[in-house]
């Protein structure tokens, strides 16, 4: 179980290898990668900056990860989230879950993403191709996605 916040890009293959290499008890590895789109809600995007609350971010991600580990039999998990300036095509976030069987890995990965979107203290500011800057509003659909886990798994 580990979490990282970093400015640098990540290599999905290398991260999976580091997390699961040498282990033979893992039957399923699920990865989710979030990527910057070139347009959001119809507006062309030049770049975005991701701000966070450094002393809280990693502890909140660790709490989210611990909650997933309490719900599913995970052999390993990893969350990597980038901060700073990102452009379309850049990776933003990586979630990796490993379990003996696929369903726990799929479900735990979805849970981690839903929970981190509503709890981890990151804020996106978009810079449009016209230079206009604006803070991204939280989506009700993200709250709804996180809520669905409250009725059990």
């Amino acid at each position, binding site marked *: 179980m580990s979490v990282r916040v970093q400015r640098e890009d990540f290599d999905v293959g290398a991260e999976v290898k580091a997390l699961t290499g040498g282990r033979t008890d893992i039957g399923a590895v699920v990865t989710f990668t979030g990527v910057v789109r070139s347009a959001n809600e119809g507006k062309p995007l030049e770049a975005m900056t991701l701000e966070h609350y450094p002393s809280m971010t990693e502890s909140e991600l660790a709490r989210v990860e611990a909650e997933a580990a309490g719900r599913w039999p995970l052999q390993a998990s990893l969350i990597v989230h980038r901060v700073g300036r990102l452009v379309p095509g850049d990776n933003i976030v990586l979630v990796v879950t490993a379990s003996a069987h696929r369903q726990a890995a799929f479900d735990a990965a979805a849970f981690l993403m839903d929970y981190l979107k509503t709890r981890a203290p990151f*804020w996106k500011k978009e810079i449009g191709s016209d230079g206009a800057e604006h803070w991204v509003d939280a989506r009700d659909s993200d709250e709804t996605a996180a809520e669905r886990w409250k009725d059990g798994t």
Partner: protein
Amino acid sequence: MTSKPVKILYFAWVREKTGKAEEVVDLPAGVKTVADLVDWLKGRGPEYAEAFARAQVIRAAIDQRHVPPQTSLAGVREIAFFPPVTGG
């Protein structure tokens, strides 16, 4: 009881509107909860009034944990105010 200095952090558009990332304040005696603190901050100047105008969307964390508005400030060292998070 003497008031203890509390560190207040602001993030994203709350930071931009208040014009500061952090400050240390002595809490007045009547400020007991997170909601009280928001009300008190609003009275500190137009930039605060603007930052906290939509108080219902502002989120708070005490000592790096999310808290609801009615949370007591007793023993608090650090409190942060920010918009709903948008990571992922």
